[in-house]
Each structure stands twice: as C-alpha cells, then as structure tokens.
C-alpha cells in the first residue's frame, strides 16, 4: 500500500461548514474556560471510534508483549509430531505446519509486525518532515528539485521497489524497517512542504523578520510547531500502511526467515492450506492485521479532527 492516497485524509476537515459567527462566538466563550491540551484530549476522547482504536492497539500491545510471559510456548524448536493440530485445550488456536503453537506465535509475530510498522513510520515521518520543511522553506529552485525527486519516487509503485530492494538482500526486521521507510517518507514530505509553503506567508512568521529575527527562529519557533499537527496526524496512517506493506512482502515471499515470524508471514503461510480447511492458520493472523490497521486508521482520523485548526477555533 502506498501512502499517497492518504494526503486527502490529512488535508481536509471532514466536519464541514462553519461560516457562522453566532456559533463561533458562543463556542468561543466556552473555550475560554478550558486549556488547549485538555480540549484536544477531550475532543479526541469524545470520538468514540478513537477510543475503540486506542483500545484495540492497547489490547494488542498487551497481548503481544505481556501475553508470552503468561502463556508460555516454544516458538524456536519445530515439533513435527504436532503439526496442523486443530484448536484444542492444549492449543487454543491449534498448531501450524511445523508444530508451533498458533496462539503463541500470534503473540511473537505481533511483536515483529508492530515494531516494524511503528519504527518504519517514525523513521519515514522524521525524514519526510525534514525533507518537506527544507523544501518548503527554501522555495525556488531547491524546492523544485527536491519535489521532483519525490514525484519520481512516487511514480514507481512502492511494492515494485520494495520487491526489488529486498531481493538484493535477505530481509530481517531491521532491513524491512529501512526499506519500508525508504518508500514511505514521500507522503509526509509532501504534506509538510505544503504546510511550510503556507506558513511562510503567515503574518506571524513575517513578523519575526520585522522584529529583526532570522530564518532559524522562524523555522524552529513558528513553522515547526505549527506543522507538528500535520505530522502527528499522519503518523498513525503511516503505521497502518507499514504493517500492510510488511504483510504484502511476506506474501510475495520476502518475509523474515523462520523461526522469526510476523503476522504477514503467518497469514501467507496459512494461505497455502486454504483448501485443507486449516482455518486457524488463516483467520487469526488475518484478523489481527485488519484489526490493528483499522485501529491505527481510526486513531489517525480522530487525531485529525482534534488537531484541525478550524475546529480548534470554535
């Protein structure tokens, strides 16, 4: 999954019209009473879907990191006497084709999926933000050159590049993080650049120069803090996309080698047994991916609503 389609999610206020002075004024008076952080938080929590999203992510974090210390399984040594057992009391989600306990594997595999997703998203966001901020603030030829590079990379389907890159070296989690962030920094770069371009002309940024301040102050004190919202809002979408990308790579045969595992590997392995009726090898990892990705998308959506400038003014 590439990131470009997400630009819409971040750029637009989905809450619609508010040209209405009366409404503003009444709400403004109310706004006086509460600090911004509290308001941002409460707007966020008011969004029930966001709470669901946070809940799901929290559940999976507990499941993957605390789970293994409660539910002990051997995820290193294969057990050929216990392959593809159907769910039972001993193995609540059965075992896989080489005898690993599926529930335990789901926990271990989730660690890898979440770590790769989150790390790749953070790396891509950091690099993209830097790239976009520099391009946007510099403007002119530098901006044009930097953005054409982004365009060129966007023109190549992310999966094709990933497949190519990971066919050069056998992937491990570290490489996956690097390779995925290499592709997904483009979205944040475009977003932040757009933001910087508009912020540059704002009166409060202009006023820095008129007070005798330099460009460093303008970028660090004004442009960066004001674009942070965009970046934060985009980050959950990045995590979601990275998790999907890992899964896609696994399916294409470029997952991490066993005994390491992630949900994508488990799912694509399971799919080989689709006609054998081993449903417990397919649906648990598949559902885990869907749930986590939906959760991160819900969080991103809610964050956008609570960060939105137009909403904040109310």
């Amino acid at each position, binding site marked *: 999954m590439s990131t470009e389609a997400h630009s819409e999610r971040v750029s637009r206020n989905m809450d619609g019209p508010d040209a209405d002075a*009366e*409404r503003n004024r009444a709400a403004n008076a109310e706004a006086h009473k509460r600090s911004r952080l509290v308001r941002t938080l409460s707007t966020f929590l008011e969004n029930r879907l966001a709470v669901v999203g946070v809940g799901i992510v929290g559940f999976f974090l507990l499941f993957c990191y605390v789970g293994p210390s409660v539910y002990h399984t051997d995820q290193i040594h294969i057990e050929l006497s216990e392959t593809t057992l159907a769910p039972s009391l001993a193995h609540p989600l059965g075992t896989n084709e080489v005898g690993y306990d599926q529930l335990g594997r789901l926990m271990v595999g989730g660690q890898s999926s979440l770590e790769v997703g989150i790390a790749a998203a953070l790396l891509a966001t950091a690099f993209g933000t830097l790239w976009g901020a520099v391009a946007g603030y510099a403007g002119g030829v530098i901006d044009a050159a930097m953005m054409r590079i982004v365009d060129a990379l966007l023109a190549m389907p992310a999966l094709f590049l990933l497949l190519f890159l990971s066919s050069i070296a056998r992937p491990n989690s570290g490489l996956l993080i690097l390779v995925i962030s290499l592709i997904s920094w483009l979205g944040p770069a475009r977003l932040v650049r757009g933001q910087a371009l508009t912020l540059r002309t704002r009166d409060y940024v202009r006023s820095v120069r008129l*007070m*005798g*301040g330099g460009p460093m102050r303008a970028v660090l*004190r004004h442009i960066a803090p004001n674009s942070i919202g965009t970046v934060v809002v985009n980050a959950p979408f990045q995590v979601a996309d990275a998790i999907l990308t890992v899964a896609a790579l696994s399916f294409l045969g470029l997952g991490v080698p066993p005994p390491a595992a992630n949900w994508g590997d488990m799912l694509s392995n399971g799919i080989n047994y689709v006609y054998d009726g081993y449903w417990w090898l397919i649906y648990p990892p598949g559902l885990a991916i869907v749930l986590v990705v939906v959760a991160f998308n819900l969080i991103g959506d809610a964050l956008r609503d609570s960060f939105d*400038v137009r909403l904040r003014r109310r």
Partner: protein
Amino acid sequence: MTPVVSIEDLHTDIALRRGVAHPVSGVSFTVNKGETLGVVGESGCGKTMTVLSIMRLLPPGGHISRGHIRFSDTDLAALEEDGMRAVRGTRVGMIFQDPMTSLNPCMTIGDQVAETVLLHRKVTRAQARQRAEEVLELVGLPRARERLDSYPHLLSGGMRQRVVIAMALACEPELLIADEPTTALDVTIQKQILRLIDELRARLGMAVILVTHDLGVVAGHTDRVAVMYAGKIVETSSTRELFANPRHPYTEALFRALPENVERDRALYAIPGLPPDLSNPPPGCRFAPRCGYATPECRAEEPKLTGDRHPFACFHPLGKAGQTAANPPAQPPRAQQGAPLLEVRNLVREFPVNSNGVLRRRIGTVSAVSDVSFGVRAGETFGLVGESGCGKSTVGRLLVADDAPTSGSITFAGTQITGQPQRALRELRRDFQLMFQDPYASLDPRMRVRSILREPLAIQRRGSAAEQERAVATLLDEVGLPRAALEKYPHEFSGGQRQRIGLARALALRPKLIVADEPVSALDVSVQAQILNLMRALQREYDLTYVFISHDLSVVRYIATTIGVMYLGKLVEIGPAEQVHATPVHPYTRGLIDSIPLADPEREQRKGQAGVRGELPSAFNPPSGCRFRTRCRLATEICAEEAPAMRRFSEQGQQAACHHPLRAAL
C-alpha cells in the same frame, strides 16, 4: 401599506457541540411593499440568522423553535421543504455577503442566472437564457450578452455581486433579502450596488430587508430600521426618527462610537465589555452588563419592546435630547516641527509579471506603487487611504523594510533604510514596527501571550529574563489586558483583545514609528473605538509616530493629522487631515468622501448621485497620463497625455496632482 412579510416572535436555535445557542430570541417585524427595512447590529447579534430563518436556509443544527413568518397567506416557519422551495427564488430572493464565494466557479454566469428561471417557470432553455440576458442588463452588467458564457472568476467583485443580484431578481420576487451585500466591496463600488438595489426596488415594487453592520448604509438606503442586540430587537422606528432621536442606550452607544461624529479632540465612546454568550444569555436586559444607565431592575427583569411608532426595549430610555453627555476629551496628537522622522522620496515598487511558460520571460510589470513621496514628522499620525489595490499596503510593507522598492528611497531618522543589507536592518528594525490587519493571522496560535510578547525582546536581546518578564507585564497593563492573559493562547481572546495583543507586541521594543495596516477594519464599531482610543493614548504617552493605513476615510479623518490619498499606485492628494476631508481638491478624493455612507439620513440624501463611477482599472498596464482619468467626470484630453504633477493648494501644505482640480492652485 400592504405587509409583504411579517415576523412574529421568531425564535431560532442552533445546536452546538455542547449546548444550544439562541441567536434569534423573540424577533418581530413587518416589511411593507416597496419599503426597505434595515436590520442593523454588530457581528453575532443574530441579524443574519434572522434572515436565514426567513429563507429557511439555516446552517446544520439550526431550526426555528417558535414563532411565525407570515408571507402573504402562508407561514414560512411551518411550511414543509417542498413548499419552501417554491417560495425561494420566485417570491423571495436573497443576496449574500461575499460575491467571490457565492457563485459556482464551474458554471457560466448565464447558466446560473437562467437556472433560477428554469427552476420556477415553464420555459425552454433558450427562453431562460434570454431572460438571463435581460436581467443581467437590468443590473448593469456591461456587455451582458457576451458575458453570458463567461465564468465568475473573470469578473470583479462588484460585477459578481451584480450577477448575484440578477439571480435573485430573475423571477421578480416580492421580497428581496440582502445580507451585508456590500461589506466585501470597496466603498465606491458599495455606493453603486446600494443605488442599484434602491432603483430596482422602486422599479419592481419589492420589499427589501437590508442587513448590515454599517449605520451609514442604513441611513442612506432604508425607510425603517430595526436595531438588534444579542438576538433581540432593542429599538425600531422610521430611519429618520431613529437617527434623530435614538431611545435605546445601545443605539446611542453605536452612534457615539462612530468616528465620523466625533471631534478630533474628543475620545470615541467605546462600549465596555463583550456581547453575551448566546447559549447562556444573562437574565434581564441583555445589554445591561455593558450599559451606563443600568440599574438592578435591568439585571433582574427583561424590558419588553413597547411603543407605537417608535418601540424600544428599555427601562431607562434616553430623552428627546438624544446624547446625554459629551464624549470625554482626548488630546489630539502633537506634531513636532523640524525635519521629518520619515522621509519617502520617489518610491516605486513594480512586480514583474512572468510568462508561465518554460522560459519564464518577463512580459510586463504591475505598477503597485509609482513615484510616491511624502514626509512624516515625529509625533504625528499620517493616514494613508485608498481602495483595495491602490498600493497603500505595499507602501506600508516598504516602510518597515518587509519588501524592497524598485527605486526611490526611504529615510528614517536620518538613516536611509532602502538598500541596507538584512544584517544592518536587524538593528534598525527596533525603531519601526508593523501592526497587522488580521488579528487572527498575526499571532502564532501555538504560543502563549507571554512568549508572543517576549519574542521581540528576546530577538533584540533586550534586558535579562526578569527584566523581559517585567516589560511584558507592563505592556499588558498598557493595552488594558489582565495579567491572567499571559498564560493564555490567542484563540482564547476576542478579535479586539487580539488586536490589543498585536499592539502590545508592536510596542514591546519601544519603537519610534508604528505602521498600522488596517488595524481596525476587521473589528466591530464599538471595539474599533476601543482600539482607536488606545492607540491615541499610547501615542501621547510614548511620543509615537503612526502611519495609519486604512480604506476608511472617516476613521483616518479622526485619527490622522495628515492624510495621503492613493489611487492605483499614485499619491493623488496629501495635506492636513481636516483640510483634505472638508475641502478636497482632487476629484477622486471628493468622490471617495461622497461614497462613504454617513450615519445621517439628511446628509446622505443630499449627496444623491455623487460618488465615483466605474471600476478600478488593472495596475498591469495602468491608464496613461492621470491614472484616475478613466473614472473621472472632469477628464479631458490632457489627462490622457500628461501625468499631472503635484501642486500646492493651501498654505498648510495641501497638495494634489490633477489637471482639473476642484479649486485653483496657489
């Protein structure tokens, strides 16, 4: 008199995220055939919601909770949506505030006007188009037939508003609602549009509801007025009666806040406080918390709108004498003699226009500022006026070195600013500061007021942290904000309060000169008065010099000692404020003054047709010779051939550049 629409006890609610706002609470009025009712009040008083209720076009969450809107024999408040649709566009037409956004950008203007006809009349497309052409001609759109197929963005604001009017009138409605129809337009165009509405009303025999915040517009273009405050009508009568004899303290306060009525050595009357929160209005009279005459009775019990010919809702109405007390005195600015603090010589700013193509050839220039010269003495207020696009804001930016001129020089306190490298300018900047127009855009939304005010001190490394802290506290006192404001963010303040913060920031470095670019044009008249008073007081205290840029000649007349009038990049007239305002020499200045609506029905009526005709030409390829000639009634051949030079017209230094001045030169 036959009433066209009569509203009885209208209540409109809007559901908010938390709670419910009541922008209209118990409004009643009647509009008769052929008559214009003005609904006037400050922003947030519920006037727009009242007329949107009539159209039943309330924003999401809005609904009429009580009352009737009787329109001939139907009650619009109770009509179902289908029936309402048959009323909108045919029997009631509406004009909105911003012509730039109220037209569909992807539809030709011909189609948009024809749509009204097609929706309501059984006509063919060709007939509808024919009708569209007729109506566009009726509203004075030049070359209407050719323009049927053009898109809105190719038209100026004034022309677009004519198109909107054409759409509203295409089916000859019985009632026309105009919601701030000229607020987004320049004053010369405003005059043209308001006259057009007057003419059309007479011609079509419509009833008109004119919603506006501008008492001047009400004075010149309405028969009766309803003054609204906090969702209620506080006073209503015939226009003449209301202006001659206001009874409600709020109406009176509005009049006293207008700079046009106040001598320059008096302060403006500023209504204290803010309008109430409409989701939780105060008990009793809603104006009581801000009223100078309020008694405990006012706070406990709500006065009813009573009276026969001139109803008002007040327990302590003003007497026949009108104004009860004169405005408090205020010292006008005192200019020092000697060399000017600021000296502008032959300032030129041109913006190159490049072709968009591959090679980006330069295909011409926009002449934004052309050969402008003036001087400003220490302690005076230099007012720079003109319509949008005249180059006044560009001059402002050049004065504070936010932009570099194409040629010409600016000298500040003996040092030439133009041509200085940025590094050297950094030091100089502490002596001249800019105050911005938009109080929402000029403060960083993510900074507390403390950091905002400390920023200039930190940049210029002025004093220790403790000293800066003290300086910030003093600044807050000076602009009349409580200390508690330090910990708040800009969005927690009203527009007027934000403008105070902006002024405090400009003052922080104790500059000699403040260039204020339209500092009050985004504010309501009562808040505008507060800011103007504050600016005046601070000027006295700190010997400040102001360059006050504004489109509003009344404000400039009140606050400035010297006025410069700009037209399309040129300074056309300059001189002492009273002189320029009372006895202008340049036909453009005269036209501008005549275009400003005065809050006085008698004087408004006397002005009649006067004003400026036509529209502002493009600054890309401006007219040859005198740039005003295309709109000037006195223009002759010489005006096209030769650019007029500045000549002196009075001993006090009134100068103008005109071949046919209204008075002989010295």
